[in-house]
C-alpha cells in the first residue's frame, strides 16, 4: 500500500509543481519544503489532494512532523491515518 501512496504523491507533486522529468535532485527522500519544490500555498493543495484521494482527515499535528517533509514520510502518515479511518 505504501508504494502505491508514494507513487500517487510523487505523480501529484511532479504534475502540480512542474518537476522536470530529468530533475536529478527530486526523489522520494528529498525535503520538499527546504528544496523549494512545494511552497506555503502548495502545501495546502497537497493536503487537500491527500485527504481527497485517500479519504482521510489529516490533523494539524502532522504539519511539523518530521515525516511530513518527504514523499516516503508522507506516505507513512497517510497509511497510518487511512488505517485509523477504516
Amino acid at each position, binding site marked *: 500500500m505504501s508504494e502505491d501512496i508514494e507513487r500517487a504523491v510523487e505523480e501529484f507533486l511532479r504534475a502540480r509543481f512542474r518537476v522536470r522529468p530529468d530533475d536529478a535532485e527530486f526523489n522520494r527522500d528529498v525535503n520538499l519544503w527546504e528544496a523549494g519544490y512545494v511552497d506555503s*500555498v502548495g502545501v*495546502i493543495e497537497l493536503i487537500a489532494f491527500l485527504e481527497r484521494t485517500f479519504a482521510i482527515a489529516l490533523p*494539524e499535528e502532522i504539519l511539523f512532523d518530521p515525516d511530513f517533509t518527504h514523499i516516503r514520510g508522507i506516505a507513512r502518515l497517510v497509511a497510518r491515518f487511512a488505517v485509523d479511518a477504516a
Partner: protein
Amino acid sequence: MSRTTLGSVSDLVLRADAVLAAERLAPDEPAEDFGRLRGHFALHLRGDDVHLLVRDPLGVNKLFFALGPDGEIDSSNHLVDLVRAGHRPARIWSVPSGHLVRIWPRARRLVLEKHSALAFADDAPADAAALPSHAARIRARLDATFRALQPLLAGRPVYVTLSGGLDSTAVAALAKLHLERFVDRFVGITFSVRDESSEPEAEPGTDGYYARRVAEGLGIPLELVELSADALPDLVDEVLLAGQDFRDFNVHCGLVNAALARAIAARTPPGSARPVVLTGDTMNELMADYTPVSYGTSQYYALPRLGPGRLRRFLVSGLDTGDREVGVFARHGVDTIQPYALHPEVYTALPGAFLELEGSKQRLGRLVMGDLVPSFIYERPKVRAQVGGSNKVGGTLAALVDRGIDAVALERRFCQLTGFAPDELKRWIRAGFYRFTATYPEEQRFQ
C-alpha cells in the same frame, strides 16, 4: 498563577454570551471547558508544577513560548519579545489556534490538546430554502455578541474601521445599534494613500469615497487617515515585527492598520481609557471571499487551487498566522475586536456549495442585515483594503511594489529584524500555521 508574561495584547474571553475574567480560569481545567470559550485570547496560566498555554479557537491572538535551560517558560503574544529575551528562533514555538499546551517542566513533559474544532459544511449542497434560517442564526449571534461587548466597551473610545465594503459596514451598523450609547466616543475611521493628483475622498470608486457615503448613511462621524505612498516604507519594519509575518498580503494589509493605529494613538489623550477598534476582518476567510490581484505584469496574493468550500477551511485555519490587525493595533495601545471571529461556527455551517454561487456574500448580507446597511453597499464590487479602490489597483500594494519592496525584500527584512535565518522561515510557517510542537522540545528534532 499568572497570565502571559510578556506582550501587550488584551484578551477577550466570552462564555455563554458574557465576558469572562481570564483570571477565573485554572490551569487544570479540562480541554473541553476551554472548548466552550469564544473570543480573542492567548493565556499562560501557572499551577504548582504545570503551565497551561491556551489560545482562542481561530487564533486571533497569538501565543509563543520558549523554554529556558532550567525548564523555565517564557511566553508572549509577540515572537520578537522572546528573541529579545535571548531565545533562539529555532527554539520558539507557537500554541496553535484552538489548542492548549500543558507543560510539566520538572517532568520534561508536554501535551498538546485540541480544545475547539470548527465544523465545516464543505460538502453540503446549497439549499436555498435553508438560507433564511442560516441568516437568522447569524444575526442572532451577532446581536448577542455586540450586547455582550457593552460592559467591556462602556466609557471607552470606539473606532470602527470603514473600508466602504459590506463586512465593515455591517459591523459599523451593529455597533451603532448596540454600542454607540454606551461608549465614550463612536467614530468611523478609514485610510487612504494620498494621491497628489486627485481628491481621494471625492473620487468615486475609492474606499474613502464609499466610507464617507457609509458614514453619512449610518450617521457616524468619519475620520480620514491619509499617508503619502512615499511615507509607507517607513512603516514596514513596524508591521513586520508587530504583524509577525513576512508574507506580502499580510504586510500590505498591516500597513493600513499601522497608519490607522498611529492616528488613533495620536488622538488619545494621556491617561484616557484604552481605545478599541472594531473591524470587519475574518469574514473574508469565513466566506472564502478572496481572489488574487493583478498589478503591473505580476499577480499577487496567490491562493491554493481549491473550490470555495475546501478553500474556506484552509483560509480559516490560516488565521493562526499573521497579526496584521491585533498585533499592529496593540503596538500603539489600541485593542482590536473582530466580531465575526467571535462566533465563527454560524458561518462555517454555511454549505460549501453556497459559497460558489455568484453574489453569495451580498445575498447572505441582505438577509442578515436588511435595511440596517445602506443599499448601495450590497452593489459595490469587492475590494481588498490594501488595494484601495474598485477602479484601479493602488493602495499599499502598489506603494510598496512601485518602490521595489517585493516579497523577497520583505522576507529578507523580516530575517534581519528577528534574527531568523532565511532557511528557518520555511520551517516557521507551514500551511498557515506557525511552528508548534506536540512533544517536549528537547525530544523533538524539527525539519
